C-alpha cells in the first residue's frame, strides 16, 4: 500500500503535468477561436449578398449591381495556370535535389536559398514579374503573366514540401527496389514519387491557396477590377488579369462604393474557393493512399 500511495513529490508532479496540459489546450483554443470567429463573421456579413446573380452574372454599373462571375472564373483559370506552371517545375526540381544532387555545401546552399525564396515578400515577386515579363520579354498585361508571377512564389513552397516528402520515403524500400536490379530512374518514379505524392499534393495546395489570396504581385502586373470579358480560355492571354483577391482590395479601397455586404460576399467567395481547393486536396490524398493499397495488377 505504501508503495502505491502518492508521495508529496508525485502529487506536485501530477499538478505540473495537469498545468502543462491545460496550458497547451488553452493555447490551441486561443489559436482556433479567432479563425472560427473570422469565418463566422465573413459568412454572417456576406451571406446576404450571395445570390444566383452575384455568382453567375457579370458586373452591372461598375459592380454595384449584377455579379462577379467573370472574376470568379478568371480566378479559377489563374489558379489552374499557377499549378500548371509551378507543379512540374517544382516537382522535377525537388526530384533533382532529393534524389540526384550530390550532398555537400553547394546543395545545402541551394536548399537554404529555396527555403528563403518562400519568405521573399510577395510584392518583390510582383516587381520581378513586371520587370521580367514587361521589360525583358515584352509581353502584354495578361492573366497568364499574373499566374506566372504567382507561380514563382508558389515554386518555393512546392519545391520545399516535395523535397521533404521525397526525403521522408524510407531508405529501406528504395534499397529494396534497387536490389532487384531496378534502375534509379524507375525507383524514383515508381517507388519514391508515389510514396511522396500525398506530401507533394499538400504542399501544392498550400501554395495555390496562398496564391489565391495574393494581391500585391498581381497589382504590380496590371490587375484590373471586374469587367465583363469573354470567359473562353483565350481570356488567359487576351485579357488583363482579374482576380478575386485584387477585386476585394479594390472594393475596400475605393471608398464610398460597394455595399458592405457585397464586399463580404466577395470575401466569402474567395474563402470558399480556397476551402474547396483544400478539401479536394484532402480527398485526392485519401483516394491516392487507398488506391495505392488496392491497386491491382
Amino acid at each position, binding site marked *: 500500500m505504501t508503495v502505491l500511495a502518492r508521495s508529496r513529490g508525485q502529487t506536485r508532479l501530477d499538478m505540473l503535468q495537469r498545468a502543462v496540459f491545460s496550458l497547451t489546450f488553452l493555447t490551441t483554443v486561443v489559436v482556433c477561436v479567432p479563425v472560427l470567429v473570422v469565418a463566422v463573421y465573413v459568412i454572417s456579413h456576406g451571406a446576404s449578398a450571395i445570390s444566383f446573380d452575384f455568382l453567375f452574372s457579370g458586373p452591372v454599373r461598375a459592380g454595384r449591381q449584377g455579379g462577379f462571375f467573370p472574376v470568379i472564373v478568371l480566378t479559377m483559370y489563374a489558379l489552374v495556370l499557377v499549378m500548371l506552371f509551378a507543379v512540374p517545375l517544382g516537382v522535377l526540381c525537388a526530384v533533382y535535389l532529393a534524389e540526384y544532387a*550530390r550532398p555537400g555545401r553547394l546543395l545545402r546552399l541551394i536548399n537554404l536559398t529555396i527555403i528563403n525564396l518562400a519568405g521573399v515578400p510577395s510584392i518583390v515577386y510582383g516587381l520581378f514579374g513586371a520587370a521580367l515579363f514587361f521589360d525583358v520579354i515584352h509581353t502584354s498585361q495578361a492573366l497568364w503573366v499574373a499566374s506566372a508571377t504567382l507561380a514563382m512564389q508558389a515554386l518555393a513552397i512546392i519545391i520545399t514540401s516535395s523535397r521533404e516528402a521525397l526525403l521522408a520515403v524510407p531508405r*529501406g524500400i528504395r*534499397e529494396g527496389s534497387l*536490389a*532487384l*536490379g*531496378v534502375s534509379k530512374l524507375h525507383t524514383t518514379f515508381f517507388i519514391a514519387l508515389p510514396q511522396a505524392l500525398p506530401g507533394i499534393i499538400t504542399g501544392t495546395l498550400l501554395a495555390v491557396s496562398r496564391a489565391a489570396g495574393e494581391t500585391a504581385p498581381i497589382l504590380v502586373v496590371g490587375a484590373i477590377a471586374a469587367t465583363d470579358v469573354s470567359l473562353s480560355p483565350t481570356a488567359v492571354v487576351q485579357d488583363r488579369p482579374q482576380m478575386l483577391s485584387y477585386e476585394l482590395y479594390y472594393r475596400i479601397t475605393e471608398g464610398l462604393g460597394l455595399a458592405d455586404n457585397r464586399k463580404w460576399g466577395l470575401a466569402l467567395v474567395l474563402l470558399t474557393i480556397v476551402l474547396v481547393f483544400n478539401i479536394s486536396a484532402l480527398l485526392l490524398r485519401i483516394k491516392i493512399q487507398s488506391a495505392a*493499397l488496392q491497386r491491382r*495488377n
Partner: protein
Amino acid sequence: MKETTAPREVTTAKGQAGSALAPSGAPYRPGDTPEAAPVVLRLEDVGVRYAQNPAVDGVTMDIYKNRITALIGPSGCGKSSLLRCLNRMNDLIPTAVVNGPIYLDGVDINSGDVDPVQVRRHVGMVFQKPNPFPMSVRDNISFGPKRLGIGGKTRLNEIVEHALRAATLWDEVSDKMDQPGTALSGGQQQRLCIARVLAVNPEIILMDEPCSALDPIATLKIEDLMRELVREYTIVIVTHNMQQAARVSDYTAFMLATEHGLHGRVIEYGSTKDLFTNPRDKRTEDYITGRFG
C-alpha cells in the same frame, strides 16, 4: 545438414595469390573445404572505407555456387559492409569507397564499364528489416519483373505464383493477393521480400541478418526456405546468430575488427563444420565458444 565428404585440398587458380594479397597473412581461404563446388564470386583483397574510415580490409575469399556462405562476427566487424560490396549497394552511400576486384562469373563487378544495375539483377538482396513496397502482395512481386520489361498479365501472374510458391508463402497469401504487403506478419513480409527477389531470378541472393527482426518460428521458416532455395541459388548471409550460421550454412567466414584501425578482416574461412568443430584460430574459437563478442 550437408553431406560432408573427406576433407581434401581445393586448389583454385588464385590459390597462390591469395596469401600474397592478404596483407596480414591470415588464412582467408577454405583450403580444406570438403568439396569443389564451382566458384561464383571471387574476392581479391577487397576493402571498404567510408570517407577516411576503413570498415573492411584485405578480404580474399571464394563464394561457392549453390552453397550457403555465412559471414559471422561481432557488431562492427564489417560483415554488412562486405555483403553490400557483392551487389554494389555501397554505391548508394556517397562516401563509400570499395577497393579490390570482385569477380562474378569471371567479370570484375567493380570495373568501370560494369553497370551496377545489371550487377543487382544477378545478385539480389534481402534486408534486415522486412521492407515490402507499399502496394499489394501481387504488385510487390510483379514490380521487379515489370520494371525489367516483362509484360502480359498471364505471364506476370505465373511469375508471381511461382515466386510465392518458391518462397513457401503461396498457401498463406493466395487469397490475399490484393491486400497490402505491409499488412502481412513480420515473417510473411520477409518471405514476401525473398519472393520479390526470386521473381527477378538472380544467381545469388544476399541476406543481411534476414531473421533478426523475426520470432523463432518465423526464423525457422526462413532457414528451411534457405535450404530449399540453395538448390537453385547461391546464398550469402550475414548473421549475428552463430547457431543460425551453424544450422543453415555450408561455409562460414568469421570476421573481426582488428585492434589497430578497427577495420574488419576475415579471420577464418572454412566449411561450417570445420570452423565450428575445429577452429584453427584462437580468436575464432573464443568467439564461437562465447568467450567474447
